[in-house]
């Protein structure tokens, strides 16, 4: 019995402490200091805010993968400029 008890207590403590550690870490590193910026963090130059990224096939060209495919296997810079070709955000 003691072995089981020790194992259970130790493991429970580890999982519990990992959550506490995560929470303290998040607060101290400012993860929760600016929620507006947090929500925006998934958007970047590749996929900017205000641009929809999925439609039924044929409605509009799904530009990214095809663009990537047709582009010569070049450097990241070249890909970046290719990605910047405007895409009209429309309703």
């Amino acid at each position, binding site marked *: 019995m003691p072995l089981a008890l020790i194992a259970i207590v130790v493991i429970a403590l580890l999982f519990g402490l990992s959550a506490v550690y995560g929470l303290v870490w998040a607060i101290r590193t400012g993860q929760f200091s600016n929620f507006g910026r947090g929500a925006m963090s998934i958007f970047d130059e590749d996929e900017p805010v*205000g641009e929809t*990224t999925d439609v039924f096939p044929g409605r509009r060209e799904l530009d990214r993968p095809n663009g990537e495919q047709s582009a010569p296997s070049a450097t990241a810079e070249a890909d970046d400029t290719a990605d910047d070709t405007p895409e009209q955000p429309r309703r």
Partner: protein
Amino acid sequence: MMAFTRREPSNENLEEKLTLAEIDRSCRMPVIVFFVSALFWLLAGTVLAMVASLKMHTPDFLADAQWLTFGRVRPAHLNTMAYGWAGMAGIAVILWMQARLSKRLLPAPKLLVGVAVAWNLTVLAGTISILAGGGTSVEWLEFPLPVALILGGLFSIIGALSMFTFFARRNVHVYVSQWYVFGAILWFPYLYVVANLMIHGDSLVETGLAGRGSVQASANWWFAHNVLGLWLTPIGVATAYYLIPKVLGRPIHSYYLSILGFWTLALFYNWAGSHHLIGGPIPAWLITVGTVGSMMMIIPVTTVAINHHFTTVGNFRTVWNSPTLRFVVFGAMSYTAVSFQGSLQSLRWVNEINHFTHYTIAHAHLGVYAFFTMMMFGAAYYVLPRMTGIEWASSWMIRTHFWTSGLGMAVYWLGLTYGGWFQGLKMNDAENEFLSIVSDTIPYLWSRSAAGLLMTVGHIVFTVLVARMLLEWYRRTRAGTREAAGNQTAAEASA
């Protein structure tokens, strides 16, 4: 370009940010292999489900086939769906989302493909042993112990690689989906191994690490509920929190609530499992704790519901025009529904009616199908074109998939919920003859088979769509390599 070679060191040196397309490309093989394997298990699980469903109202069906008796087909269905379909699709999404959000290339893609192959073989071995009569009869954990331990080991490898991606992340802010995915991958391998050892570890009984009797039942439902709560739910919710804003191109309504939702889920969900044992021979306080945990889950569920509703409201056309969002929003709405329903079912007075009836089966499918499976379909519609660079072949097939799966689920849920509730009311009244209660459920069981047929059609259509995409990919890859080879010889000739 198809002969793309991954050069992680060069990216390390550049220390500049990777484009999403580059990250997607690094995920290509593992994610495709995991998704396609998942699809295989979805079809296998569908066949097993149909056999089980037909047997419920037509018991003579395949009655002379020993391997296909109800007691074997039903757990085989559950385990292929849980560890084959849901597990592998979930892992594909975890790997892709964690790499994208961490702005890192996926590490060790070859190892991951190997893990996927091993995973398939393990699930196959487990399924065969269930069908051969070697299942353990412990719900959600029917695979024999050796099979389960191998699966746990494979889970740990995936968990370690996903955590490596997370800890090597280049993003400053940890997005809410990353929290969820990290939680899932941290908690689940441990849960799975410990539950298996506690319940099936015969040689551990003397040390007290494995239990017997009602302790096994408690461990069983602690685990079975956490499969949903700490594995499928975080993956599904993370998918919604990533794909809804991503496809709409607008940030989620309240980021604050999303973070609150994650931490309350982490705090409460683990307690909820014992509500499955209401009326069972375990201490009453343990069940009360489960009920309290289940009711507290209303907090995270409400945060998710508010967020998904207010992010999509006013953008209905965009949702409807996106294959991904049709499925994802359907899944998100089902998540709200199934979670509130689940909280209610943990109340003793509700549970004493719905327990041991078809109502519970409807609830389980609302969770794993209407929520999780639809969410994974949505993710596949988003991810696979980005892995292969190929557009989906047909809009009407996607629509067919959506409507057959969606309507099938609706029929399934309505029939069994209604039939099951009255089944429960009748069973609680001792005046009713048991057999008449059983025969009263038969029309609803037929409705379940009809619903299953609709969903099967959806799965076949989806498989055809994926197959067409992969064939086109294969064709282009071959053409690409031939072209590249041609260019090379031309270059050599000119040189």
